[in-house]
């Protein structure tokens, strides 16, 4: 009796928790409300199945609990019932899979008018590169990375000279324009994740990965790293600001291009200590301090 009651309470409690709890997704800021809809469908189907199975169990525990003189039925198989259950399950699973795959095909096929924006992850900061007037990003290679060329842009590629380089600062995007985020890492795995955009993708050193989305409202959104990248992982925050077109153009005008950044600098820049003279451990703690200070 008590057991059956607890089982019913588990179902009722779970449903009430789902409906009443304050913990729900953040207001969306991208075109991926398709994903939210698919999650809702999934919640409905799985919720009904969960309630049905556990409530049926509760009924059985109550109705068929042991009492003196009771004897169980003897029914090893019931082909009809088993076939029906298999078919119903297959239908339910199809109802989940079909919309899921449909939305996935949208997710992976980038519209042709999407602007490319490169995100480069490194322990533990985000940098960005936007195409210049030519609309093309220059090629890059991790082996080119140095203090002067933090993203490893290949200088001999003319497409790269006018690229806008945003090192360890905020990214701005214009509202309502689809963007293809090209994701790169120069050290370990990272994952560019903005909860309000719903999309995320790992960044792999040596490869370029991508996802696309259209920002649908202006605002300031926090970038989180969603793939464990060492002890500074939780500190690897960044900012994406979705601007109106005018604000975006104004911001873009203030940024420096690769050519400007790599022009020889006159004044004595604070040279980083030559590699190898500092113990790795202290380099990491120094790095962590700068990340934490931001």
């Amino acid at each position, binding site marked *: 009796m008590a057991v059956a009651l607890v089982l019913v309470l588990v179902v009722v409690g779970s449903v009430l928790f789902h409906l009443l709890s304050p913990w729900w997704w953040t207001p969306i800021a991208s075109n991926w409300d398709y994903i939210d809809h698919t999650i809702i469908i999934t919640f409905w189907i*799985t919720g009904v199945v969960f309630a049905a199975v556990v409530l049926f169990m509760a009924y059985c525990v109550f109705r068929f609990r042991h009492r003196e003189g009771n004897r169980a039925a003897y029914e090893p198989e019931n082909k009809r019932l088993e076939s029906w259950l298999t078919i119903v399950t297959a239908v339910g699973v199809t109802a989940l899979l079909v919309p899921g795959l449909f939305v996935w095909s949208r997710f992976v096929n980038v519209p042709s008018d999407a602007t490319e924006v490169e995100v480069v992850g490194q*322990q533990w900061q985000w940098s960005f590169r936007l195409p210049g007037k030519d609309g093309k990003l220059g090629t890059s290679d991790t082996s080119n990375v140095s203090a002067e060329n933090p993203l490893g842009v290949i200088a001999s590629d003319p497409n790269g000279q006018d690229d806008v380089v945003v090192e360890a600062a905020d990214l701005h995007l214009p509202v309502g324009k689809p963007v293809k985020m090209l994701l790169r890492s120069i050290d370990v795995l990272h994952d560019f994740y903005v909860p309000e955009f719903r999309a995320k993708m790992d960044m792999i050193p040596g*490869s370029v990965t991508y996802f696309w989305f259209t920002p649908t409202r202006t605002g300031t959104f926090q970038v989180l790293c969603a793939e464990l990248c060492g002890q500074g992982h939780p500190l690897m925050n960044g900012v994406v600001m979705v601007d109106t077109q005018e604000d975006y153009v104004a911001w873009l005008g203030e940024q420096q291009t690769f050519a400007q950044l790599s022009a020889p600098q006159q004044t004595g820049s604070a040279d980083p200590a030559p*590699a190898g003279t500092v113990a790795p451990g202290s380099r990491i703690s120094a*790095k962590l301090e700068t990340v934490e200070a931001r």
Partner: protein
Amino acid sequence: MVDITPADAVPPAEVGEMELYHPHSWWTKYVFSQDAKVIAIQYSATATAIGMVALVLSWLMRLQLGFPGTFDFITPEAYYQFITMHGMIMVIYLLTALFLGGFGNYLIPLMVGARDMVFPYVNMLSYWIYLLAVLVLVSSFFAPGGPTGAGWTLYPPQAIMTGTPGGQDWGIILMLVSLILFIIGFTMGGLNYVVTVLQARTRGMTLMRLPLTVWGIFTATVMALLAFPALFVACVMMLFDRALGTSFFMPAIVEMGEQLQHSGGSPILFQHLFWFFGHPEVYIVALPAFGIVSDLISTHARKNIFGYRMMVWAIVGIGALSFVVWAHHMYVSGMHPYFGFFFATTTLIIAVPTAIKVYNWVLTLWRGDIHLTIPMLFALAFIVTFVNGGLTGLFLGNVVVDVPLSDTMFVVAHFHMVMGVAPILVIFGAIYHWYPKVTGRMLNETLGQFHFWVTFLGAYLIFFPMHYLGLVGLPRRYAELTDMTIMTESAHHLNSFISIMAFMVGFAQIVFLFNLIWSIRHGREAGGNPWRATTLEWQTAETPPTHGNFGKDLPIVYRWAYDYSVPGAKEDFIPQNVPGSFGTSKEPA
């Protein structure tokens, strides 16, 4: 459907007591024993001991998550070491070892009517190599730099780099060596389990008369023998990358402004190898639990398992399908996005045989005679948590739904519910069920009730709300859940609540351990077959069974394992080794 085979149709047992290696001293009887039952207890005790380490680690990480900034000794390095070791211990060194090395060793020979495993000496070696693997793992806590903090998935490049605890110290090396040892030890045991099931079944014990426990453990072992080699080569290759400077998984990398001496390797190759092992691993843990819980439900509901043949084929089907779903762990890994279509489809297909198993468990309860014993309570709790965790798998398996939820607390909640809580509830139920056979005494019922309710409700209250933290978007593997705009005051409170529940559930496990030890001497005498069960392990001449299991003559099997409440029979159970026809028995052929 066939009638029960009459006794005279089967030739009398000709198998006398086999030439077993009988121990001559205390050492060979209890320490370097070749008796599968002793090896089973050694496996179980070692797994429980290392599991306690994992339990303490989970408390430490919950202290940090529930009360951030309160405990200075939990640095980010320490936190990552805790989660890594907790995950690895629970999945490999506890669950795999306990289900296959513990339950497999104890139950397979007894349930199939064999005197022992077919290669007892190799079986003994299997345990000692497992113990060595555990000791190497534990030694990393005392090594310079501490254990690895790479996460239990050990993804390179970070696993072997300076920014990860243990990456350039001893931690990762000891981890990889320990895994390699574990796999060697497991392979020795696994071959034993498979050959024993195939070759050493007693007369009359056809494959379709095996209890589902044996089917579950057998299929899981076959899968493990096929899956672990992928992890083995991944470990060896990463060890080479770390120790010899090869670049299997290491592309060109700039670390903290310094170019490393690697180039051309593929980090994602490791992920494919890892999950080619890692996904079957989920079912290596789940299938023995499926099998065992089927037998618990059938025995304690006094009713045959519903749809036995379907259950067997579901186990085999899930085992086979689980080898073609691995990349659903990698939807946002950056692999080619078109893989998503294939792996989402295979992943959702696997839901069908899994759902059939659930239906058959609850349909076994239907029109049963349900005894709410402690094993039955754990079996019911298993169904609740497994259904819950399995259904959230439909979120994560459905590629596009996984995109916002991947790498969040939703994933943590899902896999803990489905492959942490659910199988462990089965382990508890199984221990309450078979403890009387192992020791001759019952576990204390009152302590058992306390253990059950705190564990079941506590674990549900930990992991059910945790899904919603993931829905908010909170990422997993964050040593600090503080500097985030999506983190709210109420989410902090929920985290504190989850931590407090975790301490309570942990405390209940200490009560359980006390019960295990106390009842060895003080438990109620059990007799040979306290649950009035049909399977062969309950029909041994002596309890606990002696070396050789069945005394002079091996049992002969006349019926399937589920002749409960057969109409016309006097008792509500007919053991498998009882001859004679009862007319209406409808054993599936």
